[in-house]
Protein backbone atom coordinates (compact mmCIF):
# COMPACT_ATOMS: atom_id res chain seq x y z
CA UNK A 1 0.00 0.00 0.00
CA UNK A 2 1.23 3.47 -0.83
CA UNK A 3 1.26 5.52 2.37
CA UNK A 4 2.07 9.09 3.30
CA UNK A 5 5.64 7.94 3.98
CA UNK A 6 6.17 7.70 0.21
CA UNK A 7 5.14 11.31 -0.22
CA UNK A 8 7.32 12.40 2.70
CA UNK A 9 10.21 10.64 0.98
CA UNK A 10 9.46 12.41 -2.32
CA UNK A 11 9.23 15.84 -0.66
CA UNK A 12 12.30 15.04 1.48
CA UNK A 13 14.32 14.12 -1.59
CA UNK A 14 13.29 17.39 -3.22
CA UNK A 15 14.37 19.45 -0.20
CA UNK A 16 17.65 17.48 0.01
CA UNK A 17 18.39 18.29 -3.64
CA UNK A 18 17.50 21.95 -3.05
CA UNK A 19 19.89 22.00 -0.07
CA UNK A 20 22.73 20.59 -2.22
CA UNK A 21 22.05 23.09 -5.01
CA UNK A 22 22.03 25.85 -2.39
CA UNK A 23 25.57 24.96 -1.24
CA UNK A 24 26.77 25.06 -4.82
CA UNK A 25 25.21 28.49 -5.48
CA UNK A 26 28.18 30.85 -5.04
CA UNK A 27 26.10 33.84 -6.09
CA UNK A 28 24.12 33.64 -2.84
CA UNK A 29 26.02 35.07 0.15
CA UNK A 30 23.75 33.08 2.49
CA UNK A 31 24.13 29.79 0.65
CA UNK A 32 25.21 27.80 3.71
CA UNK A 33 22.27 29.07 5.75
CA UNK A 34 19.84 28.14 2.99
CA UNK A 35 21.47 24.74 2.62
CA UNK A 36 21.21 24.08 6.36
CA UNK A 37 17.58 25.24 6.47
CA UNK A 38 16.33 23.10 3.57
CA UNK A 39 18.63 20.30 4.71
CA UNK A 40 16.85 20.23 8.07
CA UNK A 41 13.49 20.12 6.27
CA UNK A 42 14.80 17.17 4.24
CA UNK A 43 15.94 15.44 7.42
CA UNK A 44 12.52 15.97 9.00
CA UNK A 45 10.68 14.53 6.01
CA UNK A 46 13.06 11.64 5.40
CA UNK A 47 13.89 10.62 8.95
CA UNK A 48 11.47 12.43 11.27
CA UNK A 49 10.15 9.15 12.67
CA UNK A 50 13.65 7.89 13.54
CA UNK A 51 15.27 10.83 15.34
CA UNK A 52 12.98 10.84 18.37
CA UNK A 53 10.81 13.61 19.82
CA UNK A 54 13.72 15.49 21.37
CA UNK A 55 15.69 15.18 18.13
CA UNK A 56 12.74 16.66 16.24
CA UNK A 57 12.57 19.42 18.83
CA UNK A 58 16.22 20.33 18.28
CA UNK A 59 15.58 20.24 14.53
CA UNK A 60 12.76 22.76 14.94
CA UNK A 61 14.94 25.00 17.10
CA UNK A 62 17.55 24.84 14.34
CA UNK A 63 15.00 25.90 11.71
CA UNK A 64 13.77 28.75 13.91
CA UNK A 65 17.30 29.94 14.67
CA UNK A 66 18.41 29.90 11.03
CA UNK A 67 15.29 31.77 9.91
CA UNK A 68 14.98 34.10 12.88
CA UNK A 69 18.57 35.35 12.97
CA UNK A 70 18.80 36.08 9.26
CA UNK A 71 20.92 33.16 8.11
CA UNK A 72 18.73 32.45 5.09
CA UNK A 73 18.27 34.67 2.06
CA UNK A 74 16.71 34.71 -1.34
CA UNK A 75 18.66 33.06 -4.13
CA UNK A 76 18.58 33.84 -7.83
CA UNK A 77 19.12 30.62 -9.77
CA UNK A 78 19.52 31.26 -13.48
CA UNK A 79 16.17 31.17 -15.23
CA UNK A 80 14.68 32.71 -18.36
CA UNK A 81 14.30 36.48 -18.69
CA UNK A 82 10.92 38.19 -19.04
CA UNK A 83 11.55 38.72 -22.77
CA UNK A 84 12.38 35.04 -23.28
CA UNK A 85 9.25 34.10 -21.39
CA UNK A 86 7.07 36.28 -23.59
CA UNK A 87 8.63 34.62 -26.65
CA UNK A 88 8.08 31.13 -25.21
CA UNK A 89 4.48 31.94 -24.36
CA UNK A 90 3.83 33.20 -27.90
CA UNK A 91 5.48 30.15 -29.42
CA UNK A 92 3.76 27.57 -27.23
CA UNK A 93 0.35 29.21 -27.08
CA UNK A 94 -2.43 27.89 -24.91
CA UNK A 95 -0.94 24.39 -24.94
CA UNK A 96 1.22 25.71 -22.11
CA UNK A 97 -1.77 25.34 -19.80
CA UNK A 98 -2.01 21.61 -20.36
CA UNK A 99 0.93 20.58 -18.15
CA UNK A 100 -0.29 23.03 -15.50
CA UNK A 101 -3.66 21.36 -15.52
CA UNK A 102 -2.19 17.86 -15.16
CA UNK A 103 -1.80 18.27 -11.39
CA UNK A 104 -5.35 19.45 -10.52
CA UNK A 105 -6.84 17.12 -13.14
CA UNK A 106 -4.99 14.07 -11.82
CA UNK A 107 -5.97 14.93 -8.26
CA UNK A 108 -9.59 15.58 -9.25
CA UNK A 109 -10.20 12.66 -11.57
CA UNK A 110 -8.11 10.28 -9.48
CA UNK A 111 -9.99 11.13 -6.29
CA UNK A 112 -13.36 10.76 -7.99
CA UNK A 113 -12.46 7.42 -9.56
CA UNK A 114 -10.93 6.14 -6.37
CA UNK A 115 -13.98 6.98 -4.29
CA UNK A 116 -16.83 6.27 -6.66
CA UNK A 117 -15.67 3.20 -8.59
CA UNK A 118 -14.52 -0.25 -7.54
CA UNK A 119 -10.85 0.81 -7.85
CA UNK A 120 -10.88 2.11 -4.29
CA UNK A 121 -11.65 -1.34 -2.95
CA UNK A 122 -8.17 -2.57 -3.80
CA UNK A 123 -6.84 -0.36 -1.00
CA UNK A 124 -3.82 0.87 -2.94
CA UNK A 125 -3.54 4.04 -0.92
CA UNK A 126 -3.59 4.95 2.75
CA UNK A 127 -7.21 5.61 3.73
CA UNK A 128 -8.49 9.22 3.35
CA UNK A 129 -5.14 10.34 1.92
CA UNK A 130 -5.78 9.42 -1.70
CA UNK A 131 -6.00 13.04 -2.92
CA UNK A 132 -2.46 13.65 -1.68
CA UNK A 133 -1.27 10.54 -3.48
CA UNK A 134 -2.85 11.73 -6.71
CA UNK A 135 -1.32 15.15 -6.15
CA UNK A 136 2.10 13.51 -5.98
CA UNK A 137 1.33 11.39 -9.03
CA UNK A 138 0.15 14.50 -10.89
CA UNK A 139 3.43 16.28 -10.11
CA UNK A 140 5.49 13.38 -11.49
CA UNK A 141 3.29 13.13 -14.60
CA UNK A 142 3.53 16.88 -15.21
CA UNK A 143 7.34 16.84 -14.93
CA UNK A 144 7.54 13.88 -17.30
CA UNK A 145 5.25 15.64 -19.80
CA UNK A 146 7.28 18.87 -19.67
CA UNK A 147 10.53 16.97 -20.22
CA UNK A 148 9.13 15.10 -23.21
CA UNK A 149 7.72 18.26 -24.73
CA UNK A 150 10.12 21.09 -23.92
CA UNK A 151 13.35 19.26 -23.01
CA UNK A 152 14.56 21.71 -20.33
CA UNK A 153 18.02 21.22 -18.74
CA UNK A 154 18.07 18.21 -16.41
CA UNK A 155 18.39 20.27 -13.22
CA UNK A 156 15.78 22.85 -14.27
CA UNK A 157 12.88 21.50 -12.17
CA UNK A 158 15.00 21.56 -9.02
CA UNK A 159 16.56 24.95 -9.77
CA UNK A 160 13.14 26.46 -10.57
CA UNK A 161 11.74 24.82 -7.44
CA UNK A 162 14.61 26.35 -5.45
CA UNK A 163 13.89 29.76 -6.96
CA UNK A 164 10.28 29.55 -5.72
CA UNK A 165 10.92 27.99 -2.30
CA UNK A 166 13.65 30.57 -1.56
CA UNK A 167 11.19 33.32 -2.51
CA UNK A 168 8.77 31.90 0.06
CA UNK A 169 11.55 31.31 2.61
CA UNK A 170 10.68 30.48 6.20
CA UNK A 171 6.97 31.11 5.52
CA UNK A 172 7.00 27.64 3.95
CA UNK A 173 7.71 26.11 7.36
CA UNK A 174 5.70 28.46 9.57
CA UNK A 175 2.32 26.67 9.21
CA UNK A 176 3.84 23.51 10.62
CA UNK A 177 5.41 25.52 13.49
CA UNK A 178 2.03 27.05 14.31
CA UNK A 179 0.35 23.66 14.31
CA UNK A 180 2.97 22.54 16.81
CA UNK A 181 2.40 25.67 18.92
CA UNK A 182 -1.30 24.83 19.00
CA UNK A 183 -0.46 21.44 20.49
CA UNK A 184 1.60 23.11 23.24
CA UNK A 185 -1.19 25.61 23.96
CA UNK A 186 -3.57 22.70 24.36
CA UNK A 187 -1.15 20.77 26.59
CA UNK A 188 -0.76 23.85 28.79
CA UNK A 189 -4.53 24.09 29.29
CA UNK A 190 -5.01 27.34 27.35
CA UNK A 191 -8.32 26.00 26.02
CA UNK A 192 -9.76 25.40 29.48
CA UNK A 193 -8.76 28.88 30.63
CA UNK A 194 -10.31 30.55 27.56
CA UNK A 195 -13.47 28.49 28.04
CA UNK A 196 -13.82 29.63 31.65
CA UNK A 197 -13.16 33.27 30.77
CA UNK A 198 -15.76 33.21 27.99
CA UNK A 199 -18.35 31.63 30.24
CA UNK A 200 -17.79 34.34 32.81
CA UNK A 201 -18.77 37.16 30.40
CA UNK A 202 -22.14 35.67 29.44
CA UNK A 203 -25.20 37.48 30.73
CA UNK A 204 -27.72 34.98 32.16
CA UNK A 205 -31.07 34.51 30.51
CA UNK A 206 -30.47 36.01 27.05
CA UNK A 207 -30.34 33.42 24.27
CA UNK A 208 -29.33 36.02 21.72
CA UNK A 209 -26.40 37.37 23.72
CA UNK A 210 -25.24 33.84 24.50
CA UNK A 211 -25.26 33.05 20.77
CA UNK A 212 -23.29 36.26 20.12
CA UNK A 213 -20.65 35.32 22.71
CA UNK A 214 -20.46 31.80 21.25
CA UNK A 215 -19.94 33.08 17.68
CA UNK A 216 -17.50 35.82 18.67
CA UNK A 217 -15.70 33.39 20.96
CA UNK A 218 -15.27 30.92 18.11
CA UNK A 219 -13.88 33.65 15.83
CA UNK A 220 -11.57 35.24 18.41
CA UNK A 221 -10.21 31.98 19.79
CA UNK A 222 -9.66 30.78 16.22
CA UNK A 223 -7.69 33.98 15.55
CA UNK A 224 -5.52 33.24 18.59
CA UNK A 225 -4.92 29.59 17.70
CA UNK A 226 -4.88 30.14 13.92
CA UNK A 227 -7.21 27.18 13.54
CA UNK A 228 -10.93 26.68 14.11
CA UNK A 229 -10.31 23.00 14.88
CA UNK A 230 -8.57 23.98 18.11
CA UNK A 231 -11.28 26.46 19.04
CA UNK A 232 -14.33 24.30 18.42
CA UNK A 233 -13.99 21.71 21.22
CA UNK A 234 -13.23 24.51 23.69
CA UNK A 235 -16.22 26.67 22.76
CA UNK A 236 -18.54 23.67 22.45
CA UNK A 237 -17.57 22.53 25.94
CA UNK A 238 -17.76 26.00 27.48
CA UNK A 239 -20.92 27.38 25.84
CA UNK A 240 -22.29 25.39 22.91
CA UNK A 241 -23.34 22.23 24.72
CA UNK A 242 -24.06 23.30 28.33
CA UNK A 243 -25.81 26.60 27.57
CA UNK A 244 -27.10 26.67 23.99
CA UNK A 245 -28.05 23.02 23.51
CA UNK A 246 -28.82 21.77 27.05
CA UNK A 247 -29.79 25.07 28.69
CA UNK A 248 -31.85 26.73 25.96
CA UNK A 249 -32.74 23.66 23.85
CA UNK A 250 -31.07 24.79 20.63
CA UNK A 251 -30.58 22.56 17.56
CA UNK A 252 -27.29 20.71 18.00
CA UNK A 253 -26.59 20.36 14.26
CA UNK A 254 -26.99 24.09 13.56
CA UNK A 255 -24.96 25.13 16.59
CA UNK A 256 -22.17 22.70 15.73
CA UNK A 257 -21.97 23.26 11.99
CA UNK A 258 -22.47 27.04 11.89
CA UNK A 259 -20.38 27.52 15.04
CA UNK A 260 -17.45 25.98 13.19
CA UNK A 261 -18.08 28.32 10.23
CA UNK A 262 -18.05 31.32 12.60
CA UNK A 263 -14.59 30.09 13.52
CA UNK A 264 -13.59 30.03 9.85
CA UNK A 265 -14.41 33.76 9.71
CA UNK A 266 -11.72 34.15 12.38
CA UNK A 267 -9.28 32.16 10.24
CA UNK A 268 -9.63 34.82 7.52
CA UNK A 269 -8.55 37.55 9.94
CA UNK A 270 -5.40 36.19 11.58
CA UNK A 271 -1.73 35.93 10.61
CA UNK A 272 -1.67 32.83 12.84
CA UNK A 273 -3.38 30.93 10.01
CA UNK A 274 -0.10 31.22 8.15
CA UNK A 275 -0.71 28.70 5.38
CA UNK A 276 -3.82 30.58 4.24
CA UNK A 277 -2.77 34.13 4.97
CA UNK A 278 1.01 34.57 5.13
CA UNK A 279 2.20 31.87 2.72
CA UNK A 280 0.21 33.27 -0.24
CA UNK A 281 1.53 36.75 0.56
CA UNK A 282 5.06 35.34 0.22
CA UNK A 283 4.12 33.20 -2.76
CA UNK A 284 2.66 36.18 -4.63
CA UNK A 285 5.60 38.35 -3.51
CA UNK A 286 3.45 40.95 -1.77
CA UNK A 287 5.27 43.82 -0.05
CA UNK A 288 2.89 43.70 2.91
CA UNK A 289 2.94 40.27 4.54
CA UNK A 290 -0.50 41.04 6.05
CA UNK A 291 -1.93 42.11 2.67
CA UNK A 292 -4.10 39.02 2.29
CA UNK A 293 -5.51 39.26 5.82
CA UNK A 294 -6.39 42.90 5.23
CA UNK A 295 -8.52 42.29 2.14
CA UNK A 296 -10.32 39.42 3.86
CA UNK A 297 -11.53 41.33 6.92
CA UNK A 298 -14.39 43.06 5.10
CA UNK A 299 -15.70 39.66 3.96
CA UNK A 300 -15.13 37.96 7.31
CA UNK A 301 -16.92 40.46 9.58
CA UNK A 302 -20.30 40.59 7.79
CA UNK A 303 -20.16 36.83 7.31
CA UNK A 304 -19.51 36.36 11.03
CA UNK A 305 -22.60 38.46 11.77
CA UNK A 306 -24.60 36.34 9.31
CA UNK A 307 -23.39 33.14 10.99
CA UNK A 308 -24.45 34.41 14.40
CA UNK A 309 -27.89 35.24 13.01
CA UNK A 310 -28.17 31.82 11.35
CA UNK A 311 -27.40 30.12 14.67
CA UNK A 312 -29.97 32.29 16.44
CA UNK A 313 -32.73 31.92 13.86
CA UNK A 314 -32.23 28.36 12.63
CA UNK A 315 -31.02 26.99 15.95
CA UNK A 316 -33.85 28.33 18.09
CA UNK A 317 -36.76 29.44 15.92
CA UNK A 318 -37.13 26.86 13.17
Amino acid at each position, binding site marked *: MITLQWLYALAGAMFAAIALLSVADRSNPKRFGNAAFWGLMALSLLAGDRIGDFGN*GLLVLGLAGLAGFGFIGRSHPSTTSDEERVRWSERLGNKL*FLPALIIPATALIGTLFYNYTAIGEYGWFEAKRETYMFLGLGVLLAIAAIFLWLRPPALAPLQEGRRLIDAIGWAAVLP*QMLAALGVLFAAAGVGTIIGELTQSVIPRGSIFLTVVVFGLGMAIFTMIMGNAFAAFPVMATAIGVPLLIQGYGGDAAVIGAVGMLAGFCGT*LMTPMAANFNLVPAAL*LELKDQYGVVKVQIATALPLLAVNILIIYVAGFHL
Partner: protein
Amino acid sequence: MTNYWPLLGILLVVAGFALRLNPMLVVTAAAIVTGLLAGMDIVEVISTFGKAFNDNRIIAIVWIVLPVIGLLERHGLQQRAATLIRGFKKATTGKLLIFYLAYRQITAAIGLHSTAGHPQTVRPLVAPMALAAAEKQHGELDEETAETVKAYSAGTDNVGLFFGEDIFFAIGSIVLIQQTLATYGYNLAPLHLAVWAIPTAIFAFMIHGTRLVLLDRRLARRRGPVPPIAQTAEVGE
Protein backbone atom coordinates in the same frame (compact mmCIF):
# COMPACT_ATOMS: atom_id res chain seq x y z
CA MET B 1 -7.47 27.96 41.36
CA THR B 2 -6.83 28.12 37.62
CA ASN B 3 -3.28 28.80 36.49
CA TYR B 4 -3.62 31.78 34.15
CA TRP B 5 0.09 32.03 33.41
CA PRO B 6 0.00 30.01 30.16
CA LEU B 7 -1.97 32.91 28.63
CA LEU B 8 1.31 34.82 28.60
CA GLY B 9 2.23 32.67 25.60
CA ILE B 10 -0.73 34.09 23.66
CA LEU B 11 0.27 37.60 24.66
CA LEU B 12 3.77 36.94 23.33
CA VAL B 13 2.38 35.78 20.00
CA VAL B 14 0.09 38.78 19.63
CA ALA B 15 2.85 41.22 20.59
CA GLY B 16 5.38 39.48 18.33
CA PHE B 17 3.10 39.56 15.30
CA ALA B 18 2.08 43.16 16.01
CA LEU B 19 5.74 44.24 16.21
CA ARG B 20 6.45 42.24 13.04
CA LEU B 21 9.26 40.29 14.67
CA ASN B 22 10.29 37.16 12.79
CA PRO B 23 7.31 34.78 13.24
CA MET B 24 9.56 31.71 13.45
CA LEU B 25 11.22 33.14 16.56
CA VAL B 26 7.96 34.45 18.00
CA VAL B 27 6.28 31.07 17.67
CA THR B 28 9.24 29.19 19.12
CA ALA B 29 9.56 31.57 22.05
CA ALA B 30 5.81 31.40 22.73
CA ALA B 31 5.88 27.61 22.63
CA ILE B 32 8.77 27.36 25.09
CA VAL B 33 7.34 29.99 27.45
CA THR B 34 3.88 28.41 27.40
CA GLY B 35 5.25 24.97 28.12
CA LEU B 36 7.48 26.16 30.96
CA LEU B 37 4.64 28.16 32.54
CA ALA B 38 2.46 25.07 32.41
CA GLY B 39 5.03 23.27 34.53
CA MET B 40 6.91 21.22 31.93
CA ASP B 41 10.69 21.03 32.09
CA ILE B 42 12.70 22.28 29.12
CA VAL B 43 13.41 18.82 27.66
CA GLU B 44 9.72 17.97 27.83
CA VAL B 45 8.80 21.25 26.13
CA ILE B 46 11.27 20.71 23.29
CA SER B 47 10.17 17.10 22.87
CA THR B 48 6.46 18.03 22.78
CA PHE B 49 7.15 20.77 20.25
CA GLY B 50 9.27 18.43 18.11
CA LYS B 51 6.74 15.61 18.17
CA ALA B 52 3.91 17.96 17.17
CA PHE B 53 6.03 19.36 14.32
CA ASN B 54 6.74 15.83 13.10
CA ASP B 55 3.07 14.84 13.37
CA ASN B 56 2.15 17.74 11.07
CA ARG B 57 4.55 17.02 8.22
CA ILE B 58 1.64 16.55 5.84
CA ILE B 59 1.49 20.37 5.66
CA ALA B 60 4.87 20.37 3.86
CA ILE B 61 3.72 17.95 1.14
CA VAL B 62 2.14 20.64 -1.00
CA TRP B 63 5.56 22.14 -1.85
CA ILE B 64 6.27 19.27 -4.23
CA VAL B 65 4.28 21.20 -6.84
CA LEU B 66 6.87 24.01 -6.95
CA PRO B 67 9.25 22.38 -9.49
CA VAL B 68 6.34 22.03 -11.94
CA ILE B 69 5.12 25.59 -11.40
CA GLY B 70 8.69 26.88 -11.74
CA LEU B 71 9.31 24.94 -14.95
CA LEU B 72 6.14 26.29 -16.51
CA GLU B 73 6.93 29.83 -15.41
CA ARG B 74 10.31 29.38 -17.10
CA HIS B 75 8.41 28.80 -20.33
CA GLY B 76 6.10 31.76 -19.93
CA LEU B 77 3.04 30.36 -18.12
CA GLN B 78 2.22 33.61 -16.31
CA GLN B 79 2.62 35.60 -19.53
CA ARG B 80 0.35 33.12 -21.31
CA ALA B 81 -2.30 33.36 -18.60
CA ALA B 82 -2.23 37.14 -18.96
CA THR B 83 -2.45 36.93 -22.78
CA LEU B 84 -5.43 34.61 -22.57
CA ILE B 85 -7.36 37.01 -20.34
CA ARG B 86 -6.48 40.01 -22.53
CA GLY B 87 -8.10 38.11 -25.39
CA PHE B 88 -11.47 38.09 -23.65
CA LYS B 89 -12.92 41.51 -24.32
CA LYS B 90 -15.35 41.46 -21.41
CA ALA B 91 -13.08 39.85 -18.79
CA THR B 92 -12.69 41.88 -15.62
CA THR B 93 -10.85 41.11 -12.41
CA GLY B 94 -14.08 40.91 -10.45
CA LYS B 95 -15.88 38.61 -12.90
CA LEU B 96 -12.85 36.35 -13.15
CA LEU B 97 -12.53 36.05 -9.38
CA ILE B 98 -16.29 35.51 -8.94
CA PHE B 99 -15.99 32.62 -11.39
CA TYR B 100 -13.03 31.23 -9.44
CA LEU B 101 -14.90 31.69 -6.15
CA ALA B 102 -17.80 29.60 -7.45
CA TYR B 103 -15.43 26.99 -8.90
CA ARG B 104 -13.54 26.73 -5.61
CA GLN B 105 -16.73 26.48 -3.50
CA ILE B 106 -18.26 23.83 -5.72
CA THR B 107 -15.15 21.65 -6.06
CA ALA B 108 -14.54 21.91 -2.31
CA ALA B 109 -18.16 20.99 -1.65
CA ILE B 110 -17.70 17.72 -3.50
CA GLY B 111 -14.53 16.85 -1.60
CA LEU B 112 -11.95 18.14 -4.06
CA HIS B 113 -10.57 20.82 -1.76
CA SER B 114 -6.93 19.74 -2.19
CA THR B 115 -7.02 20.00 -5.97
CA ALA B 116 -6.65 23.79 -6.05
CA GLY B 117 -4.83 26.20 -3.76
CA HIS B 118 -2.26 28.97 -3.51
CA PRO B 119 0.73 27.09 -4.97
CA GLN B 120 -1.30 24.91 -7.36
CA THR B 121 -3.64 27.44 -8.93
CA VAL B 122 -3.40 30.98 -7.48
CA ARG B 123 0.25 31.79 -8.20
CA PRO B 124 0.52 30.26 -11.67
CA LEU B 125 -2.96 31.04 -13.04
CA VAL B 126 -5.46 33.04 -11.00
CA ALA B 127 -3.22 35.93 -9.92
CA PRO B 128 -1.63 36.59 -13.34
CA MET B 129 -5.07 36.42 -14.98
CA ALA B 130 -6.54 38.81 -12.42
CA LEU B 131 -3.65 41.23 -12.95
CA ALA B 132 -4.05 41.11 -16.72
CA ALA B 133 -7.77 41.79 -16.44
CA ALA B 134 -7.08 44.67 -14.06
CA GLU B 135 -4.64 46.20 -16.55
CA LYS B 136 -7.32 46.09 -19.22
CA GLN B 137 -9.80 47.85 -16.96
CA HIS B 138 -7.41 50.28 -15.39
CA GLY B 139 -4.42 50.85 -17.63
CA GLU B 140 -0.98 50.23 -16.20
CA LEU B 141 -1.22 49.26 -12.52
CA ASP B 142 0.64 51.11 -9.81
CA GLU B 143 2.26 48.92 -7.18
CA GLU B 144 -0.49 49.43 -4.61
CA THR B 145 -3.24 48.41 -7.04
CA ALA B 146 -1.28 45.36 -8.19
CA GLU B 147 -0.83 44.33 -4.54
CA THR B 148 -4.56 44.70 -3.93
CA VAL B 149 -5.46 42.57 -6.96
CA LYS B 150 -3.01 39.85 -5.91
CA ALA B 151 -4.29 39.93 -2.34
CA TYR B 152 -7.88 39.58 -3.59
CA SER B 153 -6.81 36.58 -5.70
CA ALA B 154 -5.45 34.82 -2.61
CA GLY B 155 -8.36 35.92 -0.43
CA THR B 156 -10.89 34.60 -2.94
CA ASP B 157 -9.25 31.18 -2.85
CA ASN B 158 -9.52 31.15 0.95
CA VAL B 159 -13.16 32.25 1.06
CA GLY B 160 -14.10 29.69 -1.59
CA LEU B 161 -12.31 26.90 0.23
CA PHE B 162 -13.53 27.66 3.76
CA PHE B 163 -17.16 28.13 2.83
CA GLY B 164 -17.37 25.23 0.42
CA GLU B 165 -15.49 22.40 2.09
CA ASP B 166 -17.90 21.88 4.99
CA ILE B 167 -20.68 20.96 2.60
CA PHE B 168 -18.65 17.82 1.92
CA PHE B 169 -19.60 15.53 4.77
CA ALA B 170 -16.40 13.49 4.90
CA ILE B 171 -14.09 16.35 5.80
CA GLY B 172 -12.05 16.81 8.97
CA SER B 173 -14.04 19.67 10.43
CA ILE B 174 -17.36 17.84 10.08
CA VAL B 175 -15.84 14.76 11.70
CA LEU B 176 -14.52 16.94 14.53
CA ILE B 177 -17.94 18.53 15.13
CA GLN B 178 -19.57 15.12 15.10
CA GLN B 179 -17.03 13.60 17.50
CA THR B 180 -17.20 16.55 19.90
CA LEU B 181 -20.99 16.53 20.08
CA ALA B 182 -21.07 12.72 20.30
CA THR B 183 -19.12 12.83 23.57
CA TYR B 184 -22.14 14.66 25.03
CA GLY B 185 -24.59 12.12 23.67
CA TYR B 186 -25.68 14.00 20.52
CA ASN B 187 -25.21 11.53 17.69
CA LEU B 188 -25.62 13.45 14.46
CA ALA B 189 -25.12 12.10 10.97
CA PRO B 190 -22.28 13.92 9.15
CA LEU B 191 -24.69 14.70 6.32
CA HIS B 192 -27.06 16.41 8.77
CA LEU B 193 -24.20 18.71 9.82
CA ALA B 194 -22.97 19.28 6.27
CA VAL B 195 -26.42 20.50 5.16
CA TRP B 196 -26.11 23.36 7.63
CA ALA B 197 -22.99 24.59 5.87
CA ILE B 198 -25.08 25.47 2.81
CA PRO B 199 -26.74 28.72 4.03
CA THR B 200 -23.37 30.18 5.05
CA ALA B 201 -21.85 29.09 1.73
CA ILE B 202 -24.53 31.05 -0.13
CA PHE B 203 -24.04 34.15 2.02
CA ALA B 204 -20.25 33.88 1.62
CA PHE B 205 -20.67 33.87 -2.16
CA MET B 206 -22.98 36.89 -2.04
CA ILE B 207 -20.85 38.93 0.38
CA HIS B 208 -17.50 38.22 -1.24
CA GLY B 209 -19.03 38.43 -4.72
CA THR B 210 -20.38 41.90 -3.90
CA ARG B 211 -16.91 42.97 -2.79
CA LEU B 212 -15.47 41.71 -6.07
CA VAL B 213 -18.05 43.73 -8.02
CA LEU B 214 -17.03 46.77 -5.97
CA LEU B 215 -13.38 46.01 -6.73
CA ASP B 216 -14.25 46.12 -10.44
CA ARG B 217 -15.86 49.53 -9.99
CA ARG B 218 -12.83 50.80 -8.14
CA LEU B 219 -10.49 49.53 -10.85
CA ALA B 220 -12.59 51.13 -13.59
CA ARG B 221 -12.89 54.44 -11.74
CA ARG B 222 -9.22 54.86 -10.94
CA ARG B 223 -8.32 54.87 -14.61
CA GLY B 224 -7.17 58.33 -15.51
CA PRO B 225 -8.44 59.92 -18.74
CA VAL B 226 -6.13 59.29 -21.69
CA PRO B 227 -4.03 62.45 -22.14
CA PRO B 228 -4.98 64.18 -25.44
CA ILE B 229 -1.36 64.82 -26.39
CA ALA B 230 -0.61 61.11 -26.41
CA GLN B 231 -3.57 60.54 -28.72
CA THR B 232 -2.46 63.11 -31.29
CA ALA B 233 1.09 61.79 -31.12
CA GLU B 234 -0.23 58.35 -32.05
CA VAL B 235 -2.16 59.77 -34.96
CA GLY B 236 0.94 61.63 -36.11
CA GLU B 237 2.84 58.37 -36.37
